[in-house]
């Protein structure tokens, strides 16, 4: 039942009403004044510069993606506590993250969303080659500079202008692996190559196949396998039957763990070069234990490279416990490269940042935290000084053992 709406009584100026109005007015004025004063007094804080990070926090790469995100946040903290971007008035970096869910479609939509919904100056990502190829495609079309540690050689092809790869390429990894094989083996190495049939495995192994003859290595088995298998025994059986004296495996973590364990179990005791991927992360050692001792691999960044790397490692370990691994460390360097570009561009405009990146030429500081200590890009976005490191698990630590000039420990022949 509706209540009959009462007529509003004619407004009357009661004393109470008057006082209340005055009081309200005073408060309002006071607030506004205070606000205005403080606003004028404090110099406007420099607007933050946004950068984007696209990593697979969930899905099959989730474990590594989450680790990358941790490192990305640490990197931004480091840049900001060193004063931010001085040419922009000390502007801090603001990292905007997105989870690409280890899925190509999500990568496509998320990259686009991230770039179009935010005013970004640059982005970095996405760890896995399969995903990064898409991030790069979108970045190229939307004209947003992208830095990535992904090794796929395809990222330097096709006339890309916005994709920058400061670290070693898959073809270079292959070269390093082959050379290491000769150092470890006595006589001509006979190598069995197994790789998972994904973008990462295929591009890495192709490099091996192409360069083996010239490097004096014989490939006796070259076998793609379906990632995520339940049982490595059939595969290892084949390895044994091939008469190989060494195994190169290009895999992510689970498969690698299974392969190593199965080899041990089936008594196939040949040296293993675990590539990068799942091999060079702390979890590999945790899962495989002592059987990881002496296993070699390759990485585009390692935590014992130089003093800067060690500093970053210490900071990371303090917060998260484990040592900082390849993809994490390299993205810290990339964050600093972006900061360097912003400094020189003196503008958050992505086009200017892109141009500044193209003319990047550093040999000290965190931006140069790469093997060899120097970064400079050619017109395909490739670092002209980029090369990989050979690493080995020694006493539970991943140490750099190759090339000779950059080794932090002796290569142990197993």
């Amino acid at each position, binding site marked *: 039942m509706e209540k009959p709406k009462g007529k509003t009584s004619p407004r009357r100026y009661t004393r109470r009403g008057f006082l209340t109005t005055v009081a309200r007015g005073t408060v309002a004025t006071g607030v506004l004044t205070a606000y205005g004063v403080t606003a004028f007094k404090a110099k406007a804080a420099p607007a933050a510069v946004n950068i984007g990070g696209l990593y697979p*926090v*969930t*899905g099959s790469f*989730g474990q590594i993606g989450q680790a990358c*995100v941790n490192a990305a946040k640490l990197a931004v903290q480091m840049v900001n506590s060193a004063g931010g971007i001085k040419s922009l008035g000390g502007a801090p970096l603001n990292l905007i*993250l*997105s*989870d690409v*869910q280890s*899925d*190509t*479609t*999500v990568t*496509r*939509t*998320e990259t*686009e*969303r991230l770039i*179009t*919904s935010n005013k970004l100056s640059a982005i970095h990502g996405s760890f896995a*080659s*399969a995903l990064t*190829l*898409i991030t790069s*495609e*979108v970045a*190229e*079309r939307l004209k947003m500079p992208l830095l990535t540690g992904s090794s*796929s050689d*395809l990222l330097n092809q*096709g*006339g890309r202008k916005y994709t920058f790869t400061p670290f070693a390429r898959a073809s270079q990894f292959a070269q390093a692996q082959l050379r290491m094989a000769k150092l470890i083996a006595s006589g001509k190495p006979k190598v069995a190559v197994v790789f998972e*049939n*994904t*973008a990462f*495995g*295929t*591009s890495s192994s192709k490099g091996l196949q192409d360069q083996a003859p010239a490097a004096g290595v014989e490939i006796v088995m070259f076998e*793609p396998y*379906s990632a995520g298998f339940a049982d490595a025994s059939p595969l290892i059986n084949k390895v044994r039957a091939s008469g190989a004296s060494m195994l190169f495996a290009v895999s992510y973590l689970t498969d690698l763990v299974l392969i190593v364990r199965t080899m041990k179990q089936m008594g196939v005791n040949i040296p293993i070069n675990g590539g990068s991927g799942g091999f060079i992360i702390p979890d590999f050692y945790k899962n495989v234990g002592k059987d990881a001792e002496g296993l070699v691999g390759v990485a585009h960044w390692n935590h014992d490279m130089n003093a800067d790397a060690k500093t970053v490692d210490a900071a990371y370990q303090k917060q998260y416990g484990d040592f900082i691994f390849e993809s994490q460390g390299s993205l810290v360097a990339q964050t600093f490269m972006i900061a360097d570009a912003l400094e020189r561009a003196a503008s958050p405009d992505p086009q200017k940042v892109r141009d500044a990146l193209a003319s990047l030429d550093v040999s000290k500081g965190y931006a140069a935290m790469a093997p060899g200590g120097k970064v400079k890009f050619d017109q395909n976005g490739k670092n002209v000084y980029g090369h990989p490191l050979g690493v080995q698990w020694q006493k539970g630590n991943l140490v750099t053992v190759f090339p000779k000039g950059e080794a932090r420990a002796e290569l142990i022949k197993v």
Partner: protein
Amino acid sequence: MKRGVRPPRPLGYAAAALVLILLPRVVSNAFAIDIFVRVFLFAFIGVAWNLLGGYAKQLSLGHAAYFGLGAYTSTILLIRFGVSPWIGIMAGAVVAMLASLPIGTLCFRLRGPYFAIATIGTAQALMLLFLKFRNFAWGAEGITIPYHGNAPLMMQFDAKAGYYYIALTMLAIGLAITYWVERSWMGYYLVAVGEDQDAAEAVGVNVPRIKRDIYLISAFLTGLAGTFYVQYIYFIDPNTAFNFNVSVEAALVSIVGGVGTLWGPVVGTVLLEPTSALAQSWLGGAHGGVQLTLYAVILIVVIMWRPTGLLGVLTGAYERIVRAAPSGVPATATAEPKGAPLDG
């Protein structure tokens, strides 16, 4: 079966169509347009699936096979032979359609969930095959569509609007075909097969032929979607093209929305796609698995509560809200005629 439900007046349709057509002129947020494109695309795939799975109740969980075949055909033609995707899209759909013949012959030997499993198997088998074809179809690494800038003749657009209209058109075509099939003789046979295959056969329906024919149409349409998708995301690899999630979504939207109905897939997509996209942007990165858990819960709730899909719920609600007075025949006419004696 919701075939007896009266659709809203044509004026409503025209208004909605007008809004959709004019939308890209008004909305410029790329993210929003992207959601629309995805809604149209997945609704279209759902409509294609619905013909086979909703009306004829042949539960395929392997439609990704046709999606992928369409996508790869047009991409191979484009990159290896320079053929425009406008031709490629047709070629792809035809390839998909032809593939449905041997696949159907094999899989239709099983019924119900085992048909479903067999279809899952075929999609997976195709994925594995394409992973192996490294020389022919780029294997695991996949390939990106070469960038031509704004090239409408090569189905590439700088502005999203181009994709928006193509997807909208595809959906319209799919709905039109469904509408036509629903009201044709084929529609009746489909429903008969869907309700009871054996009874239909007993009554003289050529069940194998019906199944085969509707599968051809369903596969053809799904193949079209595959090509569009590749052109939209600029990338293809076996895992994306033959992804199980595509098969699932194709079926899911119809089940949530209303199997065997014209608008079911659309309703389902409208509910699921934006939810998924928004959940992704709000929760994405916070905790893995939240978004899909949400999806799963929605699905379970819908199945337990309204197994025939939400369309029934929506039309029921619509009836209650819009129709002020009950229309139709007075109650007494349906009552038993009084005094008619039964046997003896």
